[in-house]
């Protein structure tokens, strides 16, 4: 009983702390954005040339699938900071001295993650009701058929995502940026395998694919198994009636097994959890050394012997290039040699590789590689608690913020430069313009999200998703690398850059007491 109470309060306090932050609204806005993309037909579900008739079962299943697929990726990045927050706020040090067990702590954190992700799924469930009411093509609203996919597929998927996020936070290797990259590739592989095999995966992709495919085959035996999920190349010509999943006890047990596995993962995470012991925190252990002892320390120079030269008024300048260089150094400081090696490799390869498809992929990867550098833009001051130091300096809005932006653009041009040079050499001016628009857009997107959310996670989540849907799946409008065959996006990205710059400026203006 006592354990339940501790678990409840651990999860409750963490959840309340999150929902009372501005970034939580952005999290819900992301879910609302997904719903909008479905309403607008930008994201849809097609089986070959068929789509389901809009009824409660189809609306519920489609929105659940959109939710589980995209939230299991983007949502992971959004919630993977719950232990880190306790560390930063130093609440963890207090918790560590209580009788609370490590497993209870990791379970509580997973539960809080789950609550946040479930809130996003709830937004989609509400959207499904609206979709059904607006677009109903058959029958009336059937709440059971509409909501059952959210409950039996959506929530177990969120439980898994929540638990995996806690596991990643407890494992030193996966805690940082490397873990984010590893999760992305593990996720894409898992989604690919689920789509191919049609197994009862936690995301529900194979689960729905197999059942919808069986339903369609009963109407059209010639159906060969096409299952397009995402941006449709052409509108589906035919419709079929999907009456939803037959939720037998066996099916329900199959779904509940993911909840059990999620609990197991959260429990397992306790094995690796450092319980806020500074000696077990890998990054700190590597860097932190004790203050020099009395014997080691050189004797302090008496203050009377130190002369502080008065600073001449002329010593103050407002050289923007120097500030851009300082911001760039701050961005890149701490990157290891292999980061530069990979960046250089991608630069050279995207310049030299003759095959167009390979070059497209390399261009995309060249602008995925610096994601963790860009994601600090606009959020660094909040993350490292240097806001008061930076914002009390002169021209924090009209010099420091543009310097951060310019440094981000320098990173984009440097890392993606191979593709840009290649387009220049080929005399492909529309392509070069599209590439340049991308180089301006990506850091501006990072800056705007960083300033408004005060965190790097929102950009990491949304950008990774965008990168996956756009450059990787070659959807022309969403491809910001300039490598798409149709450069429809150039004006859009330039206008978006301007809009996002304004948004970043307004956001920072609001954070500065004066401005």
């Amino acid at each position, binding site marked *: 009983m006592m354990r339940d109470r501790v678990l409840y309060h651990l999860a409750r306090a963490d959840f309340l702390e999150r929902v009372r932050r501005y970034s939580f609204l952005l999290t819900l806005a992301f879910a609302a954005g997904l719903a909008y993309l479905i309403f607008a037909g930008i994201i849809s579900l097609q089986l070959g040339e068929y789509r389901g008739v809009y009824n409660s079962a189809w609306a519920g299943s489609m929105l659940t699938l959109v939710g589980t697929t995209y939230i299991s990726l983007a949502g992971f990045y959004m919630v993977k900071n719950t232990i880190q927050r306790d560390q930063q706020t130093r609440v963890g040090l207090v918790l560590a001295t209580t009788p609370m067990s490590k497993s209870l702590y990791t379970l509580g954190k997973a539960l809080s993650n789950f609550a946040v992700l479930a809130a996003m799924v709830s937004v989609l469930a509400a959207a499904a009701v609206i979709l059904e009411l607006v677009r109903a093509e058959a029958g009336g609203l059937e709440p059971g058929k509409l909501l059952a996919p959210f409950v039996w597929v959506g929530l177990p998927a969120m439980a898994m995502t929540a638990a995996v996020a806690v596991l990643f936070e407890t494992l030193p290797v996966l805690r940082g940026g490397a873990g984010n990259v590893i999760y992305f590739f593990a996720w894409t592989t898992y989604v690919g395998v689920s789509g191919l095999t049609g197994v009862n995966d936690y995301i529900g992709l194979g689960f729905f694919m197999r059942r919808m495919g069986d339903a369609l085959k009963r109407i059209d035996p010639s159906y060969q198994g096409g299952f397009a999920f995402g941006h449709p190349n052409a509108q589906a010509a035919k419709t079929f009636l999907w009456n939803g999943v037959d939720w037998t006890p066996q099916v329900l047990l199959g779904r509940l097994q993911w909840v059990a596995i999620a609990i197991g993962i959260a429990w397992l995470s306790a094995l690796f959890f450092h319980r806020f012991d500074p000696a077990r925190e890998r990054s700190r252990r590597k*860097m932190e050394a004790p*203050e020099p002892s009395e014997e080691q320390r050189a004797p302090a*120079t008496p203050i009377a012997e130190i002369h502080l030269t008065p600073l001449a008024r002329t*010593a103050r300048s407002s050289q923007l290039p120097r500030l851009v260089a300082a911001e760039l150094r701050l961005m890149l400081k701490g990157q290891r040699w292999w980061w530069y090696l990979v960046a250089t490799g991608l630069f050279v390869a995207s310049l030299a590789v003759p095959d167009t498809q390979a070059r497209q992929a390399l261009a995309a990867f060249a602008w995925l590689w610096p994601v963790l550098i860009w994601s600090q833009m606009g959020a660094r001051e909040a993350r490292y*608690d240097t806001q008061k130091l930076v914002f*009390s300096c002169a021209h924090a809005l009209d010099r420091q913020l543009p310097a951060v932006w310019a440094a981000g653009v320098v990173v984009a041009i440097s890392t993606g430069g191979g593709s840009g040079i290649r387009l220049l050499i080929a005399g492909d001016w529309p392509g070069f313009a599209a590439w340049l628009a991308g180089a301006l857009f990506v850091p501006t997107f990072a800056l705007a999200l960083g300033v408004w959310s005060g965190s790097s996670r929102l950009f990491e989540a949304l950008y990774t998703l965008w990168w996956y849907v756009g450059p990787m799946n070659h959807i022309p409008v969403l491809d910001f690398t300039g490598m798409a065959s149709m450069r429809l996006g150039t004006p859009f990205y330039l206008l978006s850059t301007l809009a996002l710059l304004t948004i970043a400026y307004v956001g920072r203006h609001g954070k500065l007491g004066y401005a």
Partner: protein
Amino acid sequence: MRLVIDKAGKLYHGRQGKVWALRNFSLELRPGVLGLLGPNGAGKTTLMNIVATITRATEGTITWNGADLQRDPDAVRAVLGYLPQDFGVYPNLNAVEFLEYFAAVKGLDAAAARRRIDELLPLVNLADVRKRPLGGYSGGMRQRIGIAQALLNDPQLLIVDEPTAGLDPEERVRFRNLLSDLSGDRIVILSTHIVSDVEATATDIALISGGTLVAHAPPEDLLRAAEGKVWEWVVPSVELSAAKQRYLISGTVRRADGVHVRLLAESAPAGAVPVAATLEDAYLHCLSTHRAHLAAEANAR
């Protein structure tokens, strides 16, 4: 050099409704060290955040050499050094890189910044760890890099909030001396709970309570007000609890003959002897007088 705070107020909209953290606060400062004293939640940090242009006053004006900070915050930012109570550092940068970064943000040219950093690091006793990443610094070392950062631009207005928190006694004394040396030709606002820091450095003291200015005077004036009201009284241990309920006690020391109680009262308890007032006594006296005055006003209403 003149900082004028005129009827400044700051209203916060919290979940429990509106709260004035600062109300009708006026103060005029000229070069010297102003010690800002007050209980927790008195409004000291709010006041400093307003003057440091971190947050905007809800009402009133603040002017620096005649320039209104609400309209032209950069007028003070260009000459401001600010050490907040809580601040972070970039863990991957070392001391030199961190200061170089802030020198660029503050608009110092490269040569002047280098010269200044070379002078500041020995001053804050970090010269021998200048190349170590700040992520590996102890709390006291971080505090010292914060002090160096505040002095980077040779500020005319230096605002330091609990600057000696986390410093060892030796470094604390060192910082006090530094502050005294610096105060000649600039305005220093020092907020702290450590009365001895104020005692050692302040040329003026502002006492804040409940968001209002209770007193603004040189330390000598505050001490004079408490003179003749501080007593030392020896009581048996068993009577200590009763004495605490009856008098405002500023300190106790247990000795063989009983507990030596230092207390503030208009008239001496039987057997008590008068002692010289310290700044801590003066602070407590001033606060208790202010609270008694507020209570009387409330009763009258």
